[in-house]
């Protein structure tokens, strides 16, 4: 990436104004993987000093500012204990510590990376994204957003709820990207099932969820059937990490295993 000017915003308003000034202006999060882009950015806008560096806890929520690093998320004690720790677990599997010390929450969400190990667990719990102009919306709506308006992510809000969680990232080596990742939660008998890196962006297994959430009793047979439905309804594809058929099989196995783990 080529960067012509660098602007360290002091307030969010200032950052927003700068962002609108030129089509080629861009918010820089932690700045990871800028090298991989061949884009030319007119002005890179830095949010370090706008005051988006906190993790705040209320009675019902955890609010994580956009400029908080993934390493800080991973180390948050509350998140380690909520939902069987799946948010921390997801983040923990991303590259090495030295990269997680740079990568920000805002940057990870904004990129809508299909291989994301952050989005999958966040979808499995109740997460909202707060934008400077567009305001608050559920994460799944944010992911579908196709707006051309340039906006700034301020924070994400995770609802503190009692639920059992499961997260598994199938990867080939300790530093690899997911071949497939599976996030599952069980909140009082209500299940959410998310599959990411298919290789496309994480999504709910809607039919499978409908099936399992309508069962009186979740037996092993039900779990097996749920996994099968998910395998049929979700679109899987082939890329350099794995083929379509293998991904489908893998997702089914880990959905079944995950359901077993969150059904206790």
């Amino acid at each position, binding site marked *: *990436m*080529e*960067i*012509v*000017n*660098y602007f*360290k915003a002091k307030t969010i308003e200032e950052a927003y104004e700068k962002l609108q000034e030129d089509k080629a202006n861009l918010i*820089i999060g932690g*700045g*990871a*993987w*800028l*090298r*991989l882009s061949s884009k030319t950015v007119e002005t*890179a806008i*830095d949010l*370090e000093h706008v005051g988006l560096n906190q993790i705040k806890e209320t009675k019902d929520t955890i609010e994580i500012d956009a400029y908080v690093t993934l*390493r800080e998320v991973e180390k948050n004690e509350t998140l380690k204990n909520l939902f069987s720790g799946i948010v921390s677990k997801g983040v*923990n599997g991303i*590259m*090495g*510590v*030295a*990269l997680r*010390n*740079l990568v920000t929450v805002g940057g990870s969400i904004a990129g809508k990376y299909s291989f994301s190990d952050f989005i999958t667990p966040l979808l499995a719990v109740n997460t909202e994204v707060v934008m400077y102009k567009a305001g608050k919306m559920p994460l799944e709506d944010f992911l579908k957003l196709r707006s051309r308006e340039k906006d700034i992510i301020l924070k994400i809000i995770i609802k503190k709820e009692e639920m059992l969680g499961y997260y598994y990232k199938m990867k080939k080596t*300790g*530093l690899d990207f997911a071949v497939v990742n599976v996030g599952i939660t069980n909140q009082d008998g209500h299940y959410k099932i998310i599959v990411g890196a298919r290789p496309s962006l994480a999504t709910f297994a809607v039919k499978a969820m409908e099936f399992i959430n309508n069962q009186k009793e979740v037996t092993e047979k039900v779990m097996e059937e749920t996994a099968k439905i998910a395998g049929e309804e979700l679109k899987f594809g082939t890329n350099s990490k794995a083929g379509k058929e293998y991904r489908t099989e893998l997702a089914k196995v880990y959905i079944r295993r995950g359901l077993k783990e969150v059904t206790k």
Partner: protein
Amino acid sequence: MRINIEVNGNLKTYDVAPDDYLLDTLRADNIFSIKRGCETSSCGVCTVLMDGKAVQSCTILSVKAEGHKITTIEGHQKEAKKLSEHFGHQGADQCGYCNSALALTVHAMKDEIKEPTNEDIKEYLVGNLCRCTGYEAQHRAIKLCLEDDE
């Protein structure tokens, strides 16, 4: 752009472009301990400490280091010497290209985690690749070095 960075305790002023990376800025200032390896934040040989935390200097823009404290192994010679003695005794030395960054990351780990387990060590250092040793000797040496501190 003119930026100020505290490097190993000395306040330094650098003229940089907005898209210069810290690795290039520091190597141009004759800090040879940090190395170029992969350009994709994957190998860890460019690791420096920013305010005590390990970050990859091939990934972070120089302007982002403005106002922060950067430490390289030149600023942690005692720790490097100590770890290197264990490396020597365990036969963990080979090409040495990744060793300065590894020593820095071990140092950051010690600051962050008390009494790390085997799993903690592997987890923390997973981003420090080594193609020579097969890791086993490094692991032994790092464990012995940590035990020394207790």
